[in-house]
C-alpha cells in the first residue's frame, strides 16, 4: 500500500514538476508569439525552430513553441490551446497547405495574424485578412534547382548519359515519407524540371526511405545489385538519404577508381561513378561535398525563413500591422509568380519569398561552418 501511494505521488511530482518547469515568467507587457511547428525531426524544421528561439531571446519575446510531430490534429489542438490563452500572433509551419485556411480563420477570429513558412499557405488562407503572410521558399523550387544542377552537369559531361538508355536520364529516386508535402513537391518539380530542360526521363528505380540515411543505404544496396551500370544519377529528397546512398555506392566500390576511391578520375566533380543529389545543405552534406562524394545539394534557408516570419509576427504584435514593411531585408512581392499562393494578384503583397540556393562545387565552401 505504501509503495502504491509512493508511485502515485511520483507520477504527480513528475507531472507537476514538468508543468511548473514549463511555466514562463509573465513579465509586464511582454510580447507573446506562438510558434506552431510541424515536426522538428526534420533537420530544416529543427533549424527553423532554433532560429526562432534565438530571435525570441534577443528581443525578449515570450515564444510559445509547439511541435506537432507531423500530426495535423495535434497542431490544431495546440492552436486552440494557445488561442484560449489569448496568444494572437503566430509563426506557422503547418502540416499541410489545405489546413492553412482553417488555421488563419481561427487566428483571425481572435483578431490576430500569422506568417507561414516552409509549407505554403493556400491563397484562401492569405485572403482571410491582410495580417496573414507567406514567408517561405516554395518546396518545388528545391526540385527545380536540382534539375538545373543536373542540366549543367549533363551538358558539361554528356558522356555520363551513356548508362542504360543513352538518350535519356536514367535516374534512381529516393523519396522522403510518401505523401509528405516536401516529398511530393520536390519530386514533381525535379522530374518536371528535367523534362522542361528537354531530357527524356527514365526512372530506373524509385522508393521511399522515409528521410532516413540507413533506409536509403539499404535500398541503394539492393538497387546496386539489380541495376549496376544502368543509371546516370541518384536523386534524393533530402541530404540524409543522399548520404545513405553515397555510403552504399562507396562501400560497393561504385567509384571512378576502385583502387583509390578518393580520386575523381573523370573530373566530373565526384569520386563516384554517378552524381548523387540531396536537399537541405546540412553540415554533414557540405562536408561530404568537400570530400568529393556528394555532388550537390540545395539550401533551404532556415535562417531566412524563420527570421522573415518572426519579424512579420513581431511587427504585428508591436506595431499593429506589418503590411508593406520589409522583413529580413525582403520586400513583399510586387507582381505574381507562377506558384501558389504568390500567383494571386490579390495577395502578392502578403508574400515574402526567401530564395533557395544551389549548393554546388563552385560555392559549397560558403556554407561550411
Amino acid at each position, binding site marked *: *500500500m505504501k*509503495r*502504491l*501511494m509512493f*508511485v*502515485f505521488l*511520483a*507520477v*504527480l511530482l*513528475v*507531472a*507537476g514538476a*514538468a*508543468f*511548473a*518547469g*514549463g*511555466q*514562463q515568467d509573465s513579465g509586464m507587457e511582454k510580447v507573446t508569439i506562438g510558434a506552431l511547428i510541424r515536426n*522538428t525531426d526534420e533537420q530544416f524544421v529543427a533549424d527553423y525552430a532554433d532560429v526562432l528561439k534565438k530571435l525570441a531571446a534577443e528581443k525578449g519575446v515570450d515564444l*510559445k*513553441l*509547439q*511541435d506537432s*510531430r*507531423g*500530426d*495535423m*490534429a*495535434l497542431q*490544431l*489542438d*495546440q492552436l*486552440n*490551446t*494557445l488561442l*484560449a*490563452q489569448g496568444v494572437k500572433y503566430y509563426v506557422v509551419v503547418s*502540416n*499541410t*497547405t*489545405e*489546413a492553412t485556411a*482553417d488555421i488563419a480563420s481561427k487566428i483571425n477570429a481572435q483578431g490576430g495574424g500569422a506568417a507561414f513558412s516552409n509549407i505554403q499557405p493556400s491563397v484562401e488562407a492569405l485572403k482571410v485578412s491582410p495580417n496573414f503572410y507567406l514567408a517561405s521558399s516554395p518546396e518545388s523550387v528545391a526540385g527545380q534547382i536540382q534539375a538545373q544542377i543536373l542540366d549543367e552537369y549533363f551538358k558539361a559531361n554528356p558522356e555520363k548519359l551513356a548508362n542504360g538508355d543513352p538518350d535519356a536520364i536514367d535516374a534512381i529516386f529516393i523519396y522522403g*515519407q*510518401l*505523401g*509528405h*508535402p516536401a*516529398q*511530393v513537391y520536390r519530386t514533381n518539380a525535379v522530374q518536371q524540371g528535367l523534362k522542361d530542360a528537354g531530357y527524356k526521363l527514365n526512372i530506373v528505380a524509385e522508393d521511399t526511405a522515409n528521410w532516413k540515411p540507413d533506409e536509403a543505404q539499404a535500398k541503394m544496396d539492393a538497387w546496386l545489385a539489380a541495376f549496376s551500370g544502368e543509371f546516370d544519377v541518384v536523386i534524393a529528397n533530402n541530404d540524409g538519404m543522399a548520404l545513405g546512398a553515397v555510403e552504399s555506392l562507396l562501400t560497393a566500390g561504385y567509384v571512378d577508381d576502385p583502387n583509390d576511391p578518393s580520386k575523381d578520375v573523370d573530373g566530373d566533380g565526384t569520386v563516384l561513378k554517378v552524381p548523387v543529389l540531396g536537399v537541405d545543405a546540412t553540415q554533414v552534406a557540405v562536408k561530404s561535398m568537400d570530400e568529393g562524394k556528394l555532388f550537390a545539394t540545395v539550401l533551404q534557408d532556415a535562417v531566412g525563413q524563420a527570421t522573415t516570419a518572426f519579424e512579420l509576427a513581431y511587427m504585428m504584435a508591436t506595431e499593429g500591422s506589418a503590411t508593406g514593411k520589409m522583413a529580413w531585408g525582403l520586400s513583399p512581392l510586387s507582381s505574381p509568380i507562377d506558384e501558389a499562393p504568390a500567383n494571386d494578384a490579390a495577395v502578392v503583397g502578403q508574400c515574402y519569398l526567401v530564395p533557395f540556393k544551389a549548393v554546388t562545387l563552385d560555392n559549397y565552401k560558403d556554407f561550411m561552418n
Partner: protein
Amino acid sequence: MKQLTRKSIGEFASKNTGYVTFAAMVVILGVLTGGGSLRLLSWQNLAIAEAVRALAALGVGIIIITKGIDLSLGQVVGLCACVSASLAQTPDYVSSLYPGLNLPVIAPILAGVGVGALFGLLNGFLVAYGKLPPFIATLGTMTIAAGLQLIYTHASTVGSLKNEYKVIAQGFLGPIPNMVIYVAIAVLFLWVLMNHTKIGKRIYAIGGNPTAARVSGISVKFETMKVYLMAGVLYGIAGVLLSSRLGLANALTGDNMELDAIAAATVGGVSHSGGVGKVGGIVVGVLTLGLINFGMTYLGVDSYYQLLVKGFIIIAAVYLDMRRAA
C-alpha cells in the same frame, strides 16, 4: 456513519486510481494555470481534441480485453478518413479526387464506416479463424491500410471539404461540441453492451479464460470476430469525424494513433493479460493523457519533455495497475 480512515481512503484510491489521478491532475493544472485551464473553452477544446482518440481507444480497449491487440488502428482510421473525405469534397474544387462529385453527406459517412468495418472483419477473421497472433495479423493489415491510403489519395491531401460535412464534427449543440455527443453515445452503447448483455459477459470470459469460455459453450471464434468488427466500426466513425474536424485527410492522417489509443486504454486500467477493463476507465485514460497534452501545451512545456512525461505516466499507470491486480 462510516469512518473516513486513512485505510479507506487508500482503498478508494487504489480501486479507482484512474479517477483519482485524473482528479488530481485537474486540480494541479487548475492551480498552475491560475484557473485558466478550468474555463469552459479549455474543456471544450480538450473534449474536441480527445473525441477521436476516445472512439479509437474504446475500439482497441475491447480488443485488449479479449487479450488481443490491434496495431492497424491508426492506419485504418486514416484510410477511413481519406475515403470519407474524398466523397465530401466541394464539387467545384479543381484538385478534387472525383471532380464534380456531389453526394449527400450520408454517403461519405457510410463509406468511411464501411471501410472500417471491412478492416474489422479482416482483422477478426485473421485472428479468430486464421489463428494468427493478433500482433502479427494487425501488423499486416496496418501495412496494407497504409499502402491503400497512399494509393487511394495518390499521396496528396484530400482537402476542400464541404461545410455541411465539416459541421458534423465542428458543430456545437449549445455549449456542447457535437463530438462529445457522438462519444457519449458510443460510451453508453458499449457500457450497456459490456455490463448488461450476454455479449459483454462472453467478451470478458474470452479474455479472462478462453478455455473455460469454450468449454462453457461460447463460440470464441465468432465472438472474437464480433469484437474486431465493432472496433472496426468505431475506427470508421473516428476516421469520418477526424476528417470532418480537420477539413482534410491525407496519407499521414491517423499515423501513430494506435500508440496513443493503446496507451490511453492501458492507463485507463485495461489489462493486457485479458479479461479486465472498464468502458469508463478507458474514457478516463483518454482524458488523462489528453489533459497532460493540453496542460503542457498551455503551460508552454517544451514538446520534447512532453513525450518524456507521457512515457513516465504510462509506465506508472501500468505499474499501479499491476500492483492492484497482484
